[in-house]
């Protein structure tokens, strides 16, 4: 019963996308590990790592789209939630280094020994346990989003003002994490990770497994977002986006709905960050840079906000383009990125996916009209 209603609620498109992501999660590691390098279908390890990173970005864009595309909250600080999730994972990975660090201290990470710290700060306790770190990956971004959103939405801060304070939030965190006293490795951040859950992060098997985990996490996030936006709650988010006062005068506590979406979105962003860090091997305050958060907005806009597939597509496309451009024409990449954003804003306000689905529905309408003209039936309610 439940699964049946689940399927009808999601619609075939979402099911296909989730199925495809799960398929990728299963097949790519196989093609990477099981096939010899000479085989034409072999996926080289560097590509597995690269696309694993892209999928993390796609998850971050999806999280942003839930609040921006569906609820009109243009967050220019979503990178902060991503980075906090990343730091939580980074702390776990630091504690796993153990005595293999340069100073070979059994509990303190290298940078703390370097700073002459005597013992582990209280907020590092528990991070030697994976389950605790995994909990913090969602709890810390979620809590920050809750506190921030509670004050912002209750005070009815909207539009460009909200965007500016989200930007200020991530900038403040950037400055805070740069400080050595904060206890997160300062400027250098956390790096030199050795292993995760007992297996080496450098092995191909672990990298392939991380890729799979990311694809599955993206699929599950997509499923969660689909369920949300296809429920009555999701319709209400769009209603709040388009006519907030109307929703309020109908008796909805607009600020609670926004807060819920914002917290869910921050948690998804946190998971994305946590999967990103072991794949790139480092987390530093640079991840809080406002420019990072703005780039996420560009991915989402290019792909198509207000559709769930759009931000995933946009993140893959723009980052693929970035990898190509920065290798082939390094000096032109920023111009290309800026130009892309201007073009999309001017000519494709709904993004690439939005335009495609518009074209498709227009074509269907035309087909329908032709069919009804052929059978001689009048199109219904054509005024």
């Amino acid at each position, binding site marked *: 019963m439940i699964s049946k209603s689940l399927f009808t609620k999601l619609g075939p498109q979402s099911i296909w996308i989730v199925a495809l992501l799960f398929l990728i999660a299963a097949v790519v590691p196989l093609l990477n590990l099981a096939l010899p390098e000479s085989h034409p279908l072999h996926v080289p390890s560097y590509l597995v790592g690269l696309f694993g990173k892209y999928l993390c970005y796609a998850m971050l864009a999806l999280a942003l789209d839930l609040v921006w595309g569906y609820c009109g909250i243009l967050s220019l600080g979503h990178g902060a939630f991503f980075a906090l999730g990343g730091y939580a994972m980074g702390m776990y990975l630091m504690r796993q280094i153990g005595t293999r660090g340069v100073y070979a201290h059994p509990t303190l990470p290298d940078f703390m020994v370097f700073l002459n710290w005597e013992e582990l700060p209280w907020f590092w306790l528990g991070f030697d346990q994976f389950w605790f770190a995994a909990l913090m990956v969602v709890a810390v971004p979620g809590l920050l989003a809750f506190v921030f959103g509670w004050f912002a939405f209750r005070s009815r801060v909207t539009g460009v003002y909200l965007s500016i304070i989200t930007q200020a939030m991530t900038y403040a965190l950037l400055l805070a994490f740069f400080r050595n006293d904060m206890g997160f490795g300062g400027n250098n951040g956390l790096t030199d990770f050795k292993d995760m859950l007992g297996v080496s992060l450098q092995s191909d098997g672990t990298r392939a497994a991380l890729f799979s985990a990311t694809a599955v996490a993206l699929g599950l996030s997509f499923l969660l977002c689909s369920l949300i936006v296809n*429920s009555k709650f999701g319709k209400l988010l*769009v*209603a709040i986006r*388009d006519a907030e006062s*109307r*929703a309020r005068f109908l008796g909805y*506590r607009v600020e*609670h*709905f926004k807060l819920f979406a914002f917290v869910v979105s921050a948690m998804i962003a946190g998971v994305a960050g946590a999967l990103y860090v072991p794949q790139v091997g480092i987390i530093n305050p640079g991840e809080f840079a406002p420019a990072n958060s703005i780039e996420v907005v560009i991915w989402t806009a290019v792909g198509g906000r207000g559709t769930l597939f759009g931000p995933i597509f946009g993140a893959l496309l723009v980052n693929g383009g970035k990898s190509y451009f920065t290798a082939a024409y390094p000096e032109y990449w920023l111009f290309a990125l800026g130009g892309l954003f201007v073009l999309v804003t001017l000519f494709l306000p709904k993004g690439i996916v939005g335009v495609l689905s518009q074209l498709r529905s227009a074509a269907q309408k035309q087909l329908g009209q032709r069919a009804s003209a052929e059978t001689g039936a009048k199109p219904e309610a054509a005024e």
Partner: protein
Amino acid sequence: MSPKEKQPLLYLNGVSVSFDGFKAINNLSLVVERGEMRAIIGPNGAGKTTMMDIITGKTRPDEGEVFFEGDTDLTKYDEADIACLGIGRKFQKPTVFENHSVYDNLALAFDEDRGILANLFHNETRSRRGRINEILDTVRLSHRKDFLASELSHGQKQWLEIGMLLAQDPKLLLVDEPVAGMTDAETVETANLLREISKNHSVIVVEHDMGFIRDLDVKVTCLAEGSVLSEGSLDHVASDEKVIESYLGR
């Protein structure tokens, strides 16, 4: 009848509010009985919309009392609370959810749990669907059910918004300029619609269109400079010297 039911539905007494020194509402008193439909007229800047803002919790009065159903002090609540208490409001500019279908607009307005979880795990029921279809008939939009609200004409949007109020099923409807920008035929139709609605609901209508007010045939209150200038039947108000002076003109 219990004492609560003998009380007027809405009771404003000595209400004043000023913005930057300008008194938008000045010692306004107004009583609306249960089941009554009241028309409110007055020149621009008379405080009609501000009065609605006060009743619906958007603006807090500087002084005076606003009571709903006898003992509910509306000045203590905000918009969402007041909507749930049973006061619905139609805006001057038709405000509907443009990217939702006509049906979904009504479904979102429908009187049911406004909580987050209830909306996440909401399931359509047959009785709800039937009730929404009835409202579609009432506001003459059945043939537009699956259209996006943005595809409706201006007049149809006004009706849809009135329909959303009906779906919300409030005890009191505040309707701000429902026929602004409508054709003559639509205006007549809207008067019929409001009369139909007033059979089961109390209604306050703000309007400039005197022909429309005459069609409604209800008690009229004329506001000017934030207070009541004259009150009574339309003929009584229209022949009042003060009203002619400040609003209708000679």
